[in-house]
Each structure stands twice: as C-alpha cells, then as structure tokens.
C-alpha cells in the first residue's frame, strides 16, 4: 500500500507522522516545492525573520516541551544561518530536526547559485546529518532523524534535501523500522554498579546531589525528588538543570559553579560523595578541576558513555538513562534498611545551613536606582515559580539563574553550553507556540536584545503575548565585569551608548512598550506588562556597574569565590 506523491509532500507527510505541529522557518529558492505543499496544509509554519532564530525557536519549543523542535531553511545562506542554533542545541542536548534545501543533485559541487556544503558544514554542529539526493531515501532519513534527535542523549539532526528530490514523484511507504546498526543507546545502567552506588550512598557522611540538564531531558524530576527525600541529601541544580528539583524544596541549595551560591560551592568542595546525575562536569561548574570536590567519591550517571570520566574519573560509573537508573536506586534504597551515619549527616546539614546563612544569594535594592537583583526578585514574585523564563546570555542570565525560582522543569530556558547571545527572544517565541497557556518572560540584555530585534516582527505578527524584559545596563555587562575585575577597568568596546526608545520601538511594531529607571516604577510596570493582553516590551534601566557575585575567577577553585566588591586581584 503506497501512494504516489512529490518529495515535498512526502517530507511533510513524514513530519506529520512524527507529530510535528509547528515548523519555524524561512523559505528560499530550493525549498519552494516544500512551501507550496505547506500552503494548504494544517501544519503551522512560523515565519521568523532570520534562520538563526528559526533554530533558536525550535530549541525553545523543544526545551519547553521535550518534543522535537523543527526548523527549516533554504540552501546556502539559509543553511549557514542555522548553524549557531544547531551548535547551541548540540551543546545543551536539545532535540531538534533541521530541514534544509539543497541545490539540484546534478548541480552539487558546481558552485551553483546558493550552494553551500551544508552536509559538511553541519557535520560537527549536529548529532548526525543526512544528505538526501533521491526521493527513495527521503522518508527513511526523516524518520531516522527524529529517532536520533530524541533518543539517547538528545541533540540536533539535520536533513539536507536536494530540490530535485523534493520535486520528484515517488511512492511513500510508511517506514516501519529504523536500521541504525552503529547507534548504541544504553539505558538500563549496570546492576552491579547500581548496587555499589546504593551502598556508597548509605555509607556517605556528607553526600551531595549534583543534578543537571540530564534530569530534565530524561523527565526524571519526580525520581530526583524521591531520591533527594529518601536520602535527605542536599542538592544543587546546574544552570541547565534548574527546575529539576523545585527551587523551594528544602534540600535545594541553588546552583554551583562560577556564579553559584556560596553554600553550593562549599558543599561541592566538602562533600565526601557526589551523586552526579545527568551532568558533564563542565568547566563553569568545576572551576579548577584539580581542586574540584577534592574529598568526594563520585557516582556518575549519564546516558552518554563519553561523558563518564571525561573530566573527572568516577568511582562508580553508571551509563544509563538517569530516570531508569534513579528508579532502580530509589527502589533499592526504599527496601534497604541499612543504617546511615545519622549523626554525621546531621552535622553536614548544620554546616550547610550555616553556609547558606553566612552568604545567602542577596537581593540588593536601592532607593534611587533599580538594581539588577531587584528586577529579578520582582520577576520572581510575579512568576512565583510558574512562568517560563527564557534568558539571553550575560549578567542578567546569571542573576536570573540565582534569584528566580522554578517549581518544575522546562520553565527556565537558556543557552548554557554555547552561551549564544540572541537566544532569548526567539527561544521565547518557540516556547510560547509550544505552551500558549503559559506566561512567558523573555529576559534579555541590552546587547543580546539588539541581536534579536528583527524577531519583534514575529512576536507582533503572531500576536504572541511574550513579556520581553530588557535588563538595560548600557553595557555588554558580563564582558564589562571581566574588564573591570581583571583588566584594570579598561572598558574596551563594551559600551552600548545607543539603544532605541522602547516605547517607540514597540509602537512601531504595534504593541506596548515602556522604559523605566526608578525602583518604585518596577513592580507596577512589570504588573502592567503581565496584565497587557499582547506582547510587551519593558526596558528596565538598571545601575550600570554592578557585578555578579559570587564569582569564581577563571581557573580558580570553586570554594575560592569572590563574594563581592572590593575588587579582587587579577588572576591570569
């Protein structure tokens, strides 16, 4: 049973079968056949204003739901514009499928108009990629792409399809099996290692859970919570893992790393056991590796065998799906009645509470100007752990990660591994399409926002009720902070002395905007933004020279935090 159809139709058919309801894209010459079949099809195509943002929006969609996000671009410049988003998705293990058009197969290699070697260029930007030159190979490639993107350690997959393959007529045979002999996914975890882990957990006097984006990718938040409660361990969530354990949970001691909390970093340094769950010991978390968690044995659970032992050799390596592995560990823990060293655990908690009390993450306010932390506290108040907050990259991102609470996974969406400025607004677009029911804040810096200004048109044309909050410090703040702290305050190429009038800018796109700079304006302005039925651009002028603390200087050990001004000595 098969039907004759064009490659373009077949491509769309495959997408529908994969459950795709929304494609973020930008058309061009070689994708014309595909756009022609989209013309009268129910699948929604969202026209972004730049292909990079199509990839970021697909990521926003995927990050907000766990479903595969889809983006589409034409050959040549369309495809090359996607690459930043692909790498971003690669670094943060986000499942997206990118469809790109390619010049007619006969023309490949002839420097044809808008030809680029997309297959070659995106090889290192993707988990896997395909070049489809024949309609007969199309369906298999598309279904394999979705399977690869979503399974194992998720990631971006690109399918490059030539124009003649889109135009050819062929029989669509529903694909019934995936043949990927070289694709290995280990999900269960080694039983013996799981038992060893349980024993180590019970014997530990100072355990610490170090949980990351893997918890969110695996949908393991409930299992994580159960684990934390069964063991009564303190827990940190990495930048990618925020929301994995609710921020309000009594065992949560915030984020570790370069701008992590004092308690989190001290706990890392003093723990005798790290239970590392879906994390990759990123340098922004570990600081100087040799000094990281020096007293700890390590249990490392990850679905990617290459992450195990990459940066820190574990005592108990467990390759597996963190959800399945945690479920097994929890079951063993619940059955096993071995006594834990209770007195030592109580002392450990006492110590952690002391650290929390000594240097809490502080909301600084002022009577005359808006402090960045004040802005985050107000967003936090309005969100109350429930809103989706997408962030751009820079100081605002770090303050938000420190101060905004998240009650569940998939609310905090940010570019963690790649740190791509320009991520915040398009990611919010993707997230709002995925979750029309949700309040979405797009938190941006005045730098990053200016990288995504074209997307205001997308926001306006689809009437997306995104609340864009620009933390405007007049600087590329994070770079400025490093220049201040480590380059004798020689501020080089970081001042953003021209910024558009937010009210006029928003009005030009047909929605409301406002600029504020007084602390008493903050709460009412944010409330007004949230109440407004459509999009809103709130430009918040904050005090320009704040630095994010705590800060672990590059190459430093994470317990050697700079907790605030006065300024530290430069570290080379």
């Amino acid at each position: 049973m098969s039907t004759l159809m064009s490659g373009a139709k077949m491509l769309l058919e495959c997408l529908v079968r994969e459950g795709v309801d929304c494609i973020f894209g930008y058309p061009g010459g070689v994708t014309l056949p595909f756009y022609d079949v989209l013309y009268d099809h129910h699948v929604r195509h969202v026209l972004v204003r730049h292909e990079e943002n199509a990839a970021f929006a697909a990521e926003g969609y995927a990050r907000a739901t766990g479903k595969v996000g889809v983006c589409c671009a034409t050959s040549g410049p369309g495809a090359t514009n996607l690459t930043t988003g692909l790498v971003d998705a690669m670094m943060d293990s986000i499942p997206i499928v990118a469809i790109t058009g390619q010049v007619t197969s006969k023309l490949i290699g002839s420097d044809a108009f808008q030809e680029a070697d997309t297959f070659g260029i995106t090889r290192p930007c993707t988990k896997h990629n395909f070049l489809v030159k024949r309609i007969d190979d199309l369906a298999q490639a598309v279904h394999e792409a979705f399977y690869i993107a979503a399974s194992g350690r998720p990631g971006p997959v690109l399918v490059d399809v030539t124009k003649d393959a889109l135009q050819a007529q062929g029989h669509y045979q529903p694909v019934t099996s995936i043949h990927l002999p070289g694709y290995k996914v280990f999900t269960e975890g080694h039983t013996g290692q799981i038992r060893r882990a349980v024993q180590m957990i019970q014997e530990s006097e100072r355990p610490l859970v170090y949980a990351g984006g893997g918890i969110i990718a695996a949908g393991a938040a409930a299992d994580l919570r159960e684990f934390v409660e069964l063991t009564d361990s303190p827990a940190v969530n990495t930048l990618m893992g925020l929301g994995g354990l609710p921020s309000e949970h009594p065992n949560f001691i915030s984020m570790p790393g370069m701008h992590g909390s004092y308690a989190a970093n001290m706990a890392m340094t003093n723990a005798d056991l790290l239970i590392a769950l879906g994390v990759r010991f990123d340098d922004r978390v570990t600081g100087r590796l040799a000094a990281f968690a020096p007293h700890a044995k390590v249990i490392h659970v990850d679905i990617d065998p290459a992450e195990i032992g990459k940066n820190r050799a574990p005592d108990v390596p467990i390759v597996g799906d963190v959800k399945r592995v945690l479920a097994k560990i929890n079951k063993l823990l619940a059955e096993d009645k071995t006594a834990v060293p209770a007195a030592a655990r109580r002392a450990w908690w006492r110590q952690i509470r002391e650290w929390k009390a000594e240097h809490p993450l502080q909301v600084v306010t002022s009577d005359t100007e808006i402090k960045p932390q004040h802005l985050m506290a107000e967003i936090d108040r309005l969100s109350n752990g429930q809103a989706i907050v997408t962030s751009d990259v820079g100081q605002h991102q770090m303050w938000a990660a420190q101060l905004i609470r998240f009650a569940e996974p998939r609310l905090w969406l940010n570019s963690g591994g790649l740190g791509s400025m320009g991520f915040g607004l398009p990611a919010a677009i993707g997230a709002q399409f995925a979750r029309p029911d949700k309040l979405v804040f797009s938190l941006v810096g005045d730098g990053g926002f200016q990288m995504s200004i074209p997307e205001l048109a997308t926001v306006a044309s689809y009437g997306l009720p995104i609340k864009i909050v620009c933390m405007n410090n007049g600087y590329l703040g994070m770079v400025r902070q490093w220049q201040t702290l480590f380059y004798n305050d020689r501020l080089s190429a970081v001042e953003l002395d021209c910024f558009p009038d937010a009210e006029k800018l928003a009005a030009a796109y047909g929605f409301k905007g406002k600029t504020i700079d007084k602390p008493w304006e903050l709460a009412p302005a944010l409330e007004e933004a949230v109440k407004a039925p459509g999009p809103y651009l709130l430009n918040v002028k904050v005090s320009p020279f704040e630095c994010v603390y705590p800060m672990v200087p590059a190459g430093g050990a994470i317990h050697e935090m700079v907790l605030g001004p006065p300024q530290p000595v430069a570290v080379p």
Partner: protein
Amino acid sequence: MMQVISLLLENKPGALMRVTGLLSQRGYNIESLTVARTLDPEVSRMTIAVEVETAQRQQVIKQMNKLINVLQATDLTELPSVMRELVLVRIRMPQETRQAVLKEAEIFGGRVVDSSTEGFVIEVTADPEKLGEFIDVMGSYGEIEVARSGALVIALDPKKLKLQPPVLTKKLEEVY
C-alpha cells in the same frame, strides 16, 4: 603517543569525514589511514594511526563509538595485534646494480611487479618500520618513487574477533 585505532563503519557517504573530523577538530594529525570493504559490502574497516595525547585516547575512542555510522571503534595500541603495510617502490638505477637491487628486494621478501631497462617496480609487505628500512636501502641504489598503503591492523585477541558486526534494527513501535 601513536595510537592505532581499528573501526568498523557503515559504507556510506560522509562516514569517513565524521571519523576524521573528530581528529582534525582536536588538531590531531593522522599519520596513516586505510579504508576498504569487509566481507559485508555495507561495512568498511578503517585503520587509523594518529598521534593522540595519552590522556585523550579513551575519549577519542568513545567519541568515535558515538558516531551513528560507526559500528565499533577499538584501540589496538596496546592489544596483541598484527600490523602490515604494503609499499610499491619504483626504482631507476644504473645497469650494473640491477642484480644487487634484486638481491636486496629478496631479503625484504619483495616481489618485482614490473621490470624495464631503466629499473623495477618492487612490492614489499611488512610492518611499517621494516618498510622504512627497505625504502632507505632502495634509495641508496638510485632514484626512487614510493607509494605506501598505510598500516593495516588486525587484533589477535580472539574476544575482539568481529566477523559479524552487531546489527540493531528497531521496530518503530518499540521506538515510540
């Protein structure tokens, strides 16, 4: 240190690029590389000799094993194995040394595959080090041109024997 990696990979466009990309991305220089079909025409065997920092060796193998097109990557550097390389040497020398050249070739187990008044083409198979010596010797007799195949390795450890690569075919219902 020189790492010797043996891979089984799908015989597909781009598969080679994925493997070499992992190495070039890290700034590693490939000393030699060979690829050819195995008994199964859909599977190729590749042998790579590459200079890798010792601490990174395991990571490189793991990353190769992650590649969708790679069925298996094995580090043979320290495993019992046999390594062979083939060389074709074209030599041009004076008439009076013809006999001496033939004698030398014989010592190295070489075979003359072409002969002309000007000289020979000689084929030798040996481990790469031995080939180096043979080439040096030939060079001392006259002008030479050399084509080497790159090293081929096969593991001797019976546990590593891979006649049939693992084949995983997933039914879509299991997948979703």
